[in-house]
């Protein structure tokens, strides 16, 4: 891993179009500013990881969820909109 020392308001460039600025340093907390093109996704790593973990667990889900007690009914318009995306009906 490349390790660099930077002062407040200094920055590093990653490639031609990603800039990371040290905005503020207080105690053990550093505030970073990221200037990046819209196509570059920037996330806090722990949020990214938690979603990844949730996806992995969700992929192992089995069973029928259609008749859960307490499930709300959908607004007709939304249900119709989603039906228009559905590629098939399944009897599960």
């Amino acid at each position: 891993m490349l390790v660099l020392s930077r002062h407040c308001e200094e920055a590093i460039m990653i490639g031609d179009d990603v800039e990371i600025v040290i905005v503020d340093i207080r105690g053990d907390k550093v505030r970073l500013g990221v200037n990046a093109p819209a196509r570059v996704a920037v996330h806090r790593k722990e949020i990214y990881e938690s979603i990844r973990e949730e996806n992995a667990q969700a992929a192992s889900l089995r069973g029928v969820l259609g008749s859960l007690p307490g499930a709300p009914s959908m607004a007709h318009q939304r249900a119709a909109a989603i039906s228009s995306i559905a590629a098939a009906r399944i009897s599960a």
Partner: protein
Amino acid sequence: MHRITPGTEFHMKVRTTRFGEVEIDPTRLLVFPHGLLGFARFRTFALLQPDDRGVFYWLQSIEDPELAFVVTDPTAWATGYTVPIRAGELTELGLERAEDATIFAIVNRRDGAITANLQGPIVVNAASRTGIQLVLSDRTGSTRHELVRLPGTAVAQSA
């Protein structure tokens, strides 16, 4: 030469672990250019609808019969839930307005409850059939928003 239009009788057979062979309408496939988080290799999915009244759907991978997610319309459960879609994400989806997006949340079973991941919603352009999974940076939603608490252990385990 035939042009395939939605709603025609043309079908494609897809092998799935959970539902056996499913005949789907190939004009209704959903493409996720980046896949879903942790599953980047799988780009093409079909939304499967179990019944007319249900609020749950399956997002079934076309490339891997084993890979499928239960998804739901989060707004049916969490009133006021909105997804802040950034300009770059709208462009990528080919959407002009955030209101035109169709939103899904991936469903999970966690600690005796059915939960939905509101932190990483799936956003779809229904017209172009393109989707992305967003990572919401602000903590407006939880990755485990409880939808239904499951009674006892008699969970809907078997298909």
